[in-house]
């Protein structure tokens, strides 16, 4: 382990001198806050081979990193800034510590966006969002973080810099290390820079809410939405508690977001508003919904094949209480519950009969599945971080 009084002109000592916040940041371990990739490389190379590191972006999701027991923290929040943006290519390159909000601001000025809307809002970093593959309602139609990431720069556990993918929108040169790293939670390397694919902002962005009448007729409702002339940008169901939290009447609702040309959106909205209990709402509901996350609340996702989600939804909503926030992405078959651990147990029991798969968020999901898949996952971890230096305890298959 490297000690804080370590000699020389290192990134760590710089960080300590310059940033009192980092010093008071707590935790018994050493904190490094490199402001360049080269500094990060030095930190990894100069530390003893068995030093373990907790990786941190903006630290907005501290409940995740606190589970990690490590000798030192690698704080990437100084490794920030947009390094390339070519609007005509719809691509942007930024360092890992760049905030999603900063990217949103710069791209909006060019009529473009990076359509990643993870729970927690846009106060997190690009690196963490890709590393954790965090996604929100837009993922159902626009894509997942793995689809947005075109290229990555990675510093591995041995302090070796590698790259994955590139800056072009289509690329099959070699094995796909981008997809391997996205969602690997930093256990196969630290992301230092990413090139992402942008999209044109829809000309208009309008939304409506359709009240879910006592959870009945869900399947029919979703089927009828499939016949819409314009496919929605997002479709998310919220339970009454969550609806009230985001300023809607306290009733279970399906929120629909439409984007596209004014005429197509207007026509589709007309179709939607014919549903009983439907009314137009402001599209600002979406950032509000994303930002309702409170750190420390346990999020658990359950998933089934999409055609079975109505029964999963009903089971989960019924198992919760007045404090439970439940929302769901029907087309992905996902129902997500934000509730204290005690209540999660009750919910879990209700989902067993629905045959749902479970993902405990933030626990750093283990590599689960049948033995052959677990073995494969373990081999991957062994190949890239044999000594478990990076985010130890995360993505190991003995945890679940």
């Amino acid at each position, binding site marked *: 382990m490297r000690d804080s009084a370590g000699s020389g002109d290192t990134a760590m000592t710089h960080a300590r001198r310059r940033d009192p916040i980092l010093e008071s940041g707590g935790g018994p371990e050493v904190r490094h806050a490199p402001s360049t990739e080269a500094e990060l490389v030095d930190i990894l190379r100069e530390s003893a081979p068995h030093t373990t590191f907790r990786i941190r972006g903006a630290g907005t999701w501290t409940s995740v990193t606190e589970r990690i027991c490590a000798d030192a923290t690698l704080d990437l929040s100084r490794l920030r800034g947009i390094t390339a943006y*070519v609007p005509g290519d719809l691509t942007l390159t930024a360092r890992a510590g760049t905030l999603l909000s900063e990217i949103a601001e710069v791209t909006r000025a060019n009529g473009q966006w990076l359509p990643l809307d993870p729970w927690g809002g846009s106060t997190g970093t690009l690196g963490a969002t890709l590393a954790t593959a965090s996604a929100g309602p837009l993922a159902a139609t626009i894509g997942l973080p793995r689809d947005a990431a075109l290229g990555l720069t990675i510093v591995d556990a041995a302090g070796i810099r590698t790259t994955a993918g590139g800056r072009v929108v289509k690329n099959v040169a070699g*094995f796909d290390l981008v997809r391997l790293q996205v969602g690997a939670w930093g256990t196969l390397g630290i992301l230092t820079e990413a090139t992402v694919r942008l999209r044109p902002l829809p000309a208009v962005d309008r939304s409506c809410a359709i009240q879910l009448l006592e959870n009945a007729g869900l399947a029919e409702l979703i089927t009828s939405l499939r016949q819409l002339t314009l496919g929605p940008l997002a479709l998310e169901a919220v339970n009454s508690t969550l609806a009230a939290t985001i300023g809607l009447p306290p009733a279970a609702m399906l929120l629909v977001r439409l984007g596209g040309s004014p005429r197509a959106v207007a026509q589709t909205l007309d179709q939607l508003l014919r549903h009983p209990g439907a009314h137009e709402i402001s599209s600002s509901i979406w950032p509000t919904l994303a930002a309702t996350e409170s750190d420390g609340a346990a999020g658990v996702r359950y998933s089934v094949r999409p055609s079975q989600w109505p029964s999963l939804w009903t089971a989960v909503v019924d198992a919760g209480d007045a404090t439970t926030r439940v929302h769901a992405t029907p087309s992905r078959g996902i129902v997500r519950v934000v509730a204290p651990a005690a209540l999660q147990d009750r919910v879990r029991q209700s989902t067993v009969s629905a045959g749902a798969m479970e993902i405990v968020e933030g626990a750093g999901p*283990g590599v689960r599945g049948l033995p052959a898949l677990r073995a494969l996952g373990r081999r991957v971890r062994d190949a890239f971080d044999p000594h478990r230096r990076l985010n130890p305890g995360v993505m190991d298959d003995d945890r679940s």
Partner: protein
Amino acid sequence: MIPPGLDRELADVVGTRWVLTRPGELLAYTSDGLPGYRHDPALVVLPGTRDEALAVVRLLARRNVAFVPRGAGTGLSGGALADGTVVLGLNRLRRILEIDVDNGWAVVEPGVVNAHLSRAVAAYGLHYAPDPSSQSACTIGGNVAENAGGPHCLKYGVTVNHVLALTVALADGSVVTLGSTEGEVSGYDLLGAFVGSEGCFGVVLDATVRLTINPPAVRTMLADFPTIDSAARATSAIIAAGLVPAALEMMDQPTIQAVEASIYAAGYPVDAAAVLLIELDGAAAGLDDDVARVAAACRDGGARDVRVATTEADRQRLWQGRKKAFGAMGRVSSHLVVQDAVIPRTRLPDVLAEIGRIGREEGVTVCNVFHAGDGNLHPNIPYNGNDAGETQRVERAMVRIMEACIAAGGSVTGEHGIGVDKLPYMPRLFSEATLGSMCRLRDCFDPERRMNPGKVVPVRSCREWAMSPAARR
């Protein structure tokens, strides 16, 4: 190279008829869609069921024999060739196992031909979106292994965006399911890593693929440009206007002339320097507004004419010319190099100008037909392969073109893969450390490198990586 008696052991699994060993029978397997490479396999085994395929993989594991999976053999990077080893042909596994209309997916065997799947689900108003120009022949297994693209991938994404789950046999004979139809899985995205692994990670035994709802309305248009540069600039203007066409393809004059001189003649203007074939789809309302905006962008960019297909037959004809363009070129001369590179879209005008210059300097005819919206180039050169001097000039031109694409910040393949053809470019694109990471990933799936040996990553890189203990720390 293969153990004696292997043919008989394989015949016990699949039947004598399906083990090919005679030179005449093997001939069809000595090359793929890129006839410049010829490798002689020791034998070809053609299982008829997934169980047989798995039994073959296990037998080859027990006997420690290297092998190369193969679909329809339409690959354009020399990826499905076996040099003295075994070809495992999967094109007899062509059953569609399940069509789930409610959830919008199908489970298919690897040998199902791409276009057959769309045909099978057409009655439900669905189709399989990735549409390589070879779709009437290539297989889903080959598409998964190459992460194939196609004209409509501009809007709908490439193969990986349409694969939900794969059942895969690893080289050691174990079977894993990557991905899931039951929503999410936790753990590394090994499904994403597998797609595009060019037969080096495992054999696809079945694939669950997403089916896409047919768009309610489609408009297909052809814009005619007096210069390549104006067509390239119009491409950027369309994208910059915030429009995402379903497809945005470009063909230059030599391509147009080859197509028009063939049975695939589509009525393209033979005097145009380049045409853009543009398709818009989606809700009928507003679609004609978008058509007008695209047409305006083309006209502002100097298009002489923009026409919209008025009937389905007209539309099919416009597409036929594009999809059969490689074939049309193949008829012009005895040999054809088909290339595949990607550049940032905004670099199209200068890279196309550079390609034109290289062609003139080397005295070869470059035919450009490509996915302009993605910046995915296909500079192809028809030539006489029996003329040693011309062959040499063609090779030199191709290397120069690929170097120009790399210099423009691009990549040497957008959809055809590395195979053996692009191996020499890999060290120019990636550092030794990055190539080492690719090898480490491959070794997780197949530590003995028995599957498709010698492909994708130059062997030298892997060896060096393995020898360096510091790097492995």
